[in-house]
């Protein structure tokens, strides 16, 4: 029987969870020993550091072997997102790995010689950096489903953020999407004002399966006016909520997400963007109190006074002095679902703080670490929920930066 290979779990999977490939159809020839089924992972777009060595597993009693290739393909990616927001959507092919696999068999024949043979390569499938918890995998397995079925085939945006999330009017709201097939869709943002009038933003977008797409959802950046003053009435209406989805032939293609504007005054809004677990980048608005801090790490050594020392010359010098920016920023009052969404942010290994300059005209992107190790997220006996986030810049530097610069 010929060796066959089956990629379990769909044509797009997360690298942080087992990516299983079943090889079957092999049988040990008579007189042979050390029979193994082999699997080679082929990096189609040369984006991974791949060892040139195939893996081998002895088949089970059914003549099959299951290979988990997640460890081979789970590599860091240089994440990026569009900020400032300039377009409604951006496509990235560098964040999606294209992979093929090839199965084979090896054994030592009766002459003691190693024999290896290979079957055809599989069709291409894709991998995305991310993963879900073991509990989630177990739930899906019990239900006979998987990530691909739940998100890609179901055409859902790659996020766990709550539906109906409250966002700041200047927030770079983002949703990420990977299609299950090459297609052209209409990206639609339906905007509703507080007087129940509506307007929409639409644009056509071509999607291919080897890219991940970033959709910028905030109508502010789609040239939709957030406030409109009636010429006759003189009454100003404000944009209240917006719904985001992809359509095809005027019918919903993707799932739909709703966002509400939080129009409450915030003197200095901060935002955190972070890599979520399933391949997208989410954004969180921090509307509470913010405190700028600075920590210092230095060594001091004594230097003997030189004969020509002047009054300016010290006898204690600091050859090593590193500073680190840190902040304590409160989330502001949030709903329970918004607070629980923060778990994805806390566990994420790549986060960025959008830090405003003094006139709040420009936001700087600062990679950060969140130091909270024990966080009370929701006390159900209370109606109000918030959290102080202890944030450190992911860099120690011997130089500071002047936040009062215009750009």
């Amino acid at each position, binding site marked *: 029987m010929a060796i066959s290979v089956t990629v379990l779990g769909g044509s797009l999977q997360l690298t942080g969870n087992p990516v299983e490939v079943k090889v079957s159809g092999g049988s040990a020839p008579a007189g042979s020993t050390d029979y193994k089924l082999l699997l080679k992972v082929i990096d189609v777009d040369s984006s991974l550091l791949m*060892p040139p060595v195939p893996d081998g597993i002895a088949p089970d009693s059914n003549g099959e072997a299951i290979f988990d290739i*997640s460890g*081979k393909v*789970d*590599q860091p990616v240089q994440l990026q997102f569009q900020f400032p927001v300039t377009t409604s959507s951006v496509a990235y092919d560098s964040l999606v790995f294209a992979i093929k696999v090839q199965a084979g068999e090896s054994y030592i024949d009766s002459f*003691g010689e190693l024999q290896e043979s290979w079957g055809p390569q599989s069709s291409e499938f894709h991998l995305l950096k991310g993963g879900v918890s073991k509990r989630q995998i177990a739930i899906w397995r019990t239900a006979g489903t998987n990530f691909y079925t739940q998100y890609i085939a179901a055409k859902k945006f790659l996020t766990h953020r709550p539906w109906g999330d409250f966002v700041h009017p200047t927030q770079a709201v983002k949703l990420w999407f990977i299609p299950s097939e090459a297609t052209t869709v209409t990206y639609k943002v339906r905007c509703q004002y507080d007087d129940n009038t509506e307007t929409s933003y639409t644009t056509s977008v071509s999607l291919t399966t080897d890219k991940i797409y970033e959709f910028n959802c905030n109508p502010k950046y789609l040239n939709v006016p957030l406030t409109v003053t009636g010429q006759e009435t003189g009454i100003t209406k404000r944009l209240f909520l917006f719904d985001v989805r992809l359509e095809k032939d005027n019918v919903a293609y993707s799932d739909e997400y709703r966002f509400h504007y939080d129009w409450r005054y915030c003197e200095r809004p901060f935002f955190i963007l972070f890599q979520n677990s399933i391949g997208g980048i989410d954004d969180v608005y921090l509307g509470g109190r913010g405190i700028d801090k600075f920590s210092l790490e230095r060594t001091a050594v004594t230097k003997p006074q030189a004969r020509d020392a002047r009054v300016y010359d010290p006898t204690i010098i600091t050859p090593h002095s590193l500073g680190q920016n840190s902040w304590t920023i409160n989330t502001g009052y949030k709903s329970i679902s918004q607070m629980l969404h923060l778990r994805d942010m806390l566990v994420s290994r790549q986060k960025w703080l959008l830090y405003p300059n003094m006139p709040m005209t420009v936001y700087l992107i600062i990679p950060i670490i969140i130091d909270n190790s024990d966080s009370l997220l929701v006390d159900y006996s209370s109606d109000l929920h918030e959290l102080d986030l202890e944030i450190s810049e992911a860099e120690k530097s011997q130089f500071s930066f002047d936040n009062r610069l215009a750009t």
Partner: protein
Amino acid sequence: MDDIPGNAGLGIDIPVNEFSRAIFGNPERFEKYGSGSDRKFPGFEIRQKGVLLERGTFVITGADQERYTGWLQSELGVLGEEQRDKFIDELPWKTQQTFVNKVTYSQITDEYAAPTIHNQAFWEGKGKQITEVRKYQDEEGVWQKMDETIEYLTARFRDNFSYLINQREGSSIKSTGEGCVVSPMLFLQYVLKEIFRMHQWYINRNDLYDNIAMRELFIYNNFNIVRPLFTKERVEFSEFDREFMRYITRELDRIVGVSWGVATFSYRDLIPHVPLKDFILGLQNYLNYVFFFRTDKKIDIIDRDAIPDSTPIDIDSYFVNEWIMGERSDSRLKFIAEVEKNDGIQGEDWHDLSDRLDDFGDPVDTYADLLAISDPDIGELRLVIEENKIYEWKWSIYIGEDEVRREHQEDVLRWEFVSTGPQPYQYGDADEIEEIRTEFSTLLKFFKAFGLDLLSIPYVRQHGNIDIMRSLWSDFSPRLVFNVSFSGAATDELGGYNLNWPGENGLFEKRWKRWSRLWKNRLPVEGYFDFPLSVIDYIKMNIHKKFRTRHGEFIIQEMETEFGIEKVGITKIKGFKV
């Protein structure tokens, strides 16, 4: 240079539960019985997220009610342990082989070569001796005669075969006749392939084979597959037995005829008697090809001299903290090849003169060139290439004899023999010496008609071995020679590579120069990297290559990573800056 490094999985703890107990047994069994086989479990693999980190034998070093503690010995470690105190000629080599007699041999189609070699001493010490008359000229130029004792078989070897092993005649090798010597010599590629195959390791990448000259190497031996074939008849002999004081009859096999011919032979007699580790290490330290043992039981034979100039792998994006620099070494590399003491060409007359490097002048081609040197310095040393002998210009005593052995002495200044060559090759001027030892060498004397390698015949003076005289067995060291394809010649220089150390085609210039430049003044460095699992796997499989960060290039000596459940720790890399 002194060891073949292997991987290991250290500090493994496995909790005692019904699953682990089913495999390892009850922990108290270890305390009570504790035999080696009790505690070793072959066929184990360490995998994380599907990635095979190591495969080998799990060795349990301790067990209590809560956990088994042990370490994973890699397949290479298992191989080393199996082969400890064993020799490569003791492996199950082919037996009962029939000699394929032809004029030319090639490593493409054949497992052995049969080059023509001159060995005057093959039959020394074997068989009966005869007295021959030798002629000599006395002081007055008158021819005189004297008796000389010589082995009968040596005389036949001289008269019928001109002292030539594997002497060609027409389209085949002469393989019959008294004193005939036929010695098949296994190709190095075949020997390597077989040694590993017998342990179920297989060669994958082979830079040694990819070198067109190196693939022609064979291993010299001194075994003769020609043996006397006796024709016998059973006869009765009558003799008087003094114990029983009467005549008794004995039945004996009387030899009525002897013919010499090729017998079947075993490859083990063609293999030097060395341990596997010394064989591999010796080859590495001679030709500078290293053996990289992979987790999938395949071996890559890597050209180590090419590494310093190779394209590095960039792992800068994973580097964390700072490099820790060690103390730069400054050593003189001394390449020491073991001398074949049983070969009279080199043998017992070899002495290490490497501490007298400054006394050496340029080598000369012939003894006549040596004598032609005008006004040499007292203590000056010179190598005569043709003879492979080193002479010293010194105050000596000339002792002459007449025909009745009356001595006559004079104080003279003259060139006096001090040692056979070659001397260990040295690179660098530092006082500290780092020795790179190898069991391997080559044959030292070649006759090349018209200077052609195609017509090259090596010269040795070494006692031979024959199956029916194993009590007189003379071991031979691993010595490599190039087979000249489609000829019966064997040479020390082929394709621009010479198997001796000095010279523009010598081993140092062609095989060691680039690596030695790095190794002589190596700077140890230590750094930390935050590798994902896949990159650890990649680097492990390419650990012999050159790497780089923004600070520069380096080669890895050792890497260490701690793994836990859902956790891959920071990797510590020790290496040397290039």
